[in-house]
């Protein structure tokens, strides 16, 4: 009865606007879904062979053998593998802008403001079993903008993407990128401070020194309010310093782009000085050299599997990084930093078995539970446990095998990618394309301006972070 009520309520809410066409099967209140007879890789509770999983109201309702079907929609997953949706802790997907590179401290900028929900690469990521992204500002600035964590609800309005309850965060960057050593100033343009690693440290220290004073001003004002002092003047809000105060109060995570070991130690020492924690080091190419120190600080590391030598700073990057840091007690995740690589993070993770012999479970964690922890969403996603969000992917083989591919991807229990449905639509889409090509506005013009030239290849091993700032 109650369910029916919710159902009716939902329908009436939806009646007001047109639903974008997606594979979505329905929302909270729609019939349950039972995934039957899969090999369930729970990540935190081992592997369950021939198990069923019941999705109810977007959550994992139960996991076990021979679950009662009821009136649930049944998906037969015999011979297939079910794993939690992959969490990508470093992405620049669906961002209309990546770097505000004019200042060295741009903590006032928010990735929230530049989200493009129509980016087709989101769908391609879903087809690789990815369900959540950490959308980061680029690495041009010592202190960059505020990141946004999203669920990939491709086809939905942008507000539905925002991951409820994810910890707010901010991007830092160390070393060569904030130094702008690869970016030549235009004639007449002044070189931006900083230009050395010494300067990068000073930029961060200066910003936090100001933030500390700003915090004191507000603390004094609030204390005054509490004391009911008269004639109090509220301090002026500073949108640049507010996020840094949140960092010092432990309300905002720091995701710090870094390559070299010395940079990592510098930031740990600086964070200790101001009494805050680094949540993740991003890329952390030389993390293996200082794994002990990273573990002691309690930071995580979000890394490439094996990308190296693309610049001098990356010359000491090794594929054993994940294994060495994991064994030192660091929470490690494998990220993409690329819309291309995001589609095959399963293979990237499996490289930790090739180089350094991590166990299957440790390896799966690199792309599920660990990145979820790094974003503060591990109570919601990252493993298959009753009560967690039904962000899941069905694979046709073991997801750590290079020969496997995704069959179906769920976000909050709804299907956002389904290979069979994708295949079934193709003939129609091709027909539609042919028709559109023949349509009058799309024919090659007989005169006047021609259409713009087509885009180039989008190669693998191209890092959005590296190229940021130069994108058209």
């Amino acid at each position, binding site marked *: 009865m109650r369910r029916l009520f919710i159902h009716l309520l939902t329908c009436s809410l939806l009646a007001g606007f047109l639903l974008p066409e997606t594979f979505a099967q329905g929302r909270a209140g729609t019939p349950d879904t039972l995934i039957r007879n899969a090999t369930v890789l729970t990540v935190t509770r081992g592997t369950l062979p021939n198990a069923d999983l019941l999705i109810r109201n977007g959550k994992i309702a139960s996991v076990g053998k021979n679950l009662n079907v009821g009136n649930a929609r049944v998906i037969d997953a015999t011979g297939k593998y079910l794993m939690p949706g992959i969490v990508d802790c470093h992405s620049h997907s669906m961002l209309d802008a990546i770097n505000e590179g004019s200042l060295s401290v741009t903590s006032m900028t928010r990735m929230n403001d530049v989200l493009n929900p129509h980016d087709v690469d989101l769908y391609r990521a879903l087809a690789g079993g990815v369900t959540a992204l950490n959308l980061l500002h680029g690495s041009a600035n010592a202190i960059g903008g505020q990141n946004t964590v999203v669920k990939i609800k491709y086809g939905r309005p942008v507000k539905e993407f925002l991951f409820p309850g994810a910890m707010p965060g901010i991007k830092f960057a160390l070393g060569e990128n904030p130094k702008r050593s690869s970016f030549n100033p235009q004639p007449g343009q002044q070189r931006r401070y900083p230009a050395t690693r010494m300067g990068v440290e000073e930029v961060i220290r200066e910003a936090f020194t100001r933030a500390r004073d700003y915090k004191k001003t507000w603390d004094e004002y609030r204390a005054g309010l509490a004391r009911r002092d008269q004639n109090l003047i509220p301090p002026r809000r500073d949108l640049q310093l507010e996020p840094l105060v949140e960092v010092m109060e432990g309300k905002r995570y720091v995701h710090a782009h870094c390559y070299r070991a010395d940079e990592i130690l510098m930031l740990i020492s600086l964070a200790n000085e101001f009494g805050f924690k680094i949540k993740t080091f991003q890329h952390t190419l030389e993390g293996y050299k200082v794994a002990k120190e990273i573990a002691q600080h309690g930071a995580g590391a979000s890394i490439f599997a094996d990308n190296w030598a693309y610049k001098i700073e990356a010359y000491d990057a090794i594929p054993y990084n994940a294994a060495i840091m994991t064994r030192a007690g660091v929470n490690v995740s494998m990220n993409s930093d690329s819309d291309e690589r995001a589609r095959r993070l399963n293979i990237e993770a499996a490289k930790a078995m090739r180089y350094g012999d991590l166990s299957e479970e440790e390896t799966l964690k690199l792309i599920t539970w660990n990145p979820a922890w790094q974003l503060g969403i591990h109570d919601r996603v990252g493993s298959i446990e009753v009560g967690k969000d039904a962000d899941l992917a069905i694979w046709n083989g073991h997801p750590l095998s*290079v020969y496997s591919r995704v069959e179906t991807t769920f976000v909050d229990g709804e299907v956002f990618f389904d290979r069979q449905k994708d295949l079934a639509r193709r003939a129609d889409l091709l027909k539609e394309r042919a028709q559109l090509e023949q349509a009058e506005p799309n024919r090659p013009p007989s005169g006047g301006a021609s259409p713009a030239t087509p885009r180039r*290849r989008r190669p693998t091993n191209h890092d959005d972070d590296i190229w940021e700032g130069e994108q058209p």
Partner: protein
Amino acid sequence: MRAGTRRRWDKEIGKPEAMAMTRNSEAGSGGFAASPCGKAARRCENLKQDFRESRAGVNHASLPARFSSLSDSFQVGSLPENLYMRSSQLPQGRSSLKASQVGKGGLPPLGFRYRQFQFSRSLTRFQQGGVTKPPSLVLPALLLVSLTFFLFSYNAGFAQQIGEPTRQHGVSFSRGLYAIRNAHIVTVSGPDIDNGTIVIRDGKIEALGASVSVPSGAQTIDARGLWVYPGMIDAATSMGLVEVGQGASGTVDTAEVGDLNPNAKAITGINPHSAHIAVTRVDGVTSAVSMPLGGLISGQAAIVNLVGTSPLEMAVVPYAALVINYPRAGGGTGGGGFFVPDQPPNLTEALAQANRQLEQIRKMLRDAEVYGRAQEAYAKDRTLPRTDQNVLLEPLVPYVRGDRPVIFRADRETDIRGAIRFAEEMKLKPIILGGDDAGKIATFLKEKNVPVILTGILDLPSREDDFYDALYENAAKLQQAGVRFCISSGDSGANVRNLPFYAGMAAAFGLPKAEALKAVTLYPAQIMNIADRLGSIEAGKMANLVVTDGDLLETRTHVRHLFIDGRQIPLHSRHTDLNDAFKNRR
């Protein structure tokens, strides 16, 4: 029409008038018909002989020394101008050749030639100045350079050093007599052999089978529970030509100045001590085609084994193929970079630009054809006028004759079709490189019998409305249509080790697993014409073998033993060294 023009051209070259052209133009170019050309030609010939010997495994020790004479041979400026400039003056229609037209000699008409011309001229000046009368600053400068080198090499033990420590290189891994026993042998070309033995002697696979006996004195490897595969071959890399792409331009040797560089030879630029080489081979990729990337005619690719202390020791085929970036409307075919600033404003201009570029290539290849015929005629009949050697056209001759393949980088359907039409017109032996749209025109490719090196398996589809797996399933489409193809990483070097995962992904999307394996072993060998030596495990072939603990293409698999050219290679690399150094830091 094309064929008609061509026949006429053929006839003319044998005619007195055509010969007169050569004679007159020589006269017209005055003092350029210099004797150093003949000397350089002989040196080039020596060099080629060296390569032939190296292929035959002869006289290895003496090669590096002779190879150093290469730099003498290339007094670039002193050689090319006269004949090449003459041929650039040939009438466009090619229906008639008149001595009066070609005899004018002198300056080249077009920008690109002019650039090259200037470049070579300045080189000449430099070389002349440097050789005959060193300026007073030269000696101190040399001292400074050698001091820098000394300091650099003195510091070479520290962490961020470019290149490979001597632990991996600097020592030759000798060929010997080996036997791999109790292995599951995946021959690729024939059925698997369970519990088999492979005997390796003097660099070659001497015997293999279930009942092969181990010769006395053989070093034996017990491969119980392990698998033996032929080493993987990546048919499109720039291995050894670039160490660190960004921030270390001194280590980048991929693209020469100018658009037409047929004489840029990868084998000359490959750094045998690049850290990429050991990093790549310990993951089972034992050979690579290394190619230049720039301009329109990028240069010549080399096929190398990933072991050796000199490029010659590495060479399987030093001059394997000519690499042409087929002009793409809108730019962007070259391997230069992701953002190329020369995007034309609209499609009309883009198409016109691509056509102009294709015409540049066509002209040079035609010139090379004429040059080749003139040389050939003179070789047969010494009473005919001698043609000066031209270092730009000389290397093109075997390619325009169809003796060696020409690799065309082309991704889009129109470009692939265009490249194949162009190859037919010029009677070339084409290979398509890239081939993102190849699956869409598989029947056409099959009909033309043109092989494809797929480098885009793991690229994002370039069009927004491409299906998500458009490039994943590209290989399967070619295989189903019976097109000859192979799979490459297309990477410059650092990521070539990921080659098996490119093939694995193709297998996840429709390519049979056995075909995926062939696509990185036998097929690249066939396409690059080295299947007589590499690509499968057969008696008589070069012993490039990878012993693994599982499926070669599977990510979690480990390489356990490695043989290249019959040499057992330790499984060390820059990465294993750094791992060893830090993994136990507490």
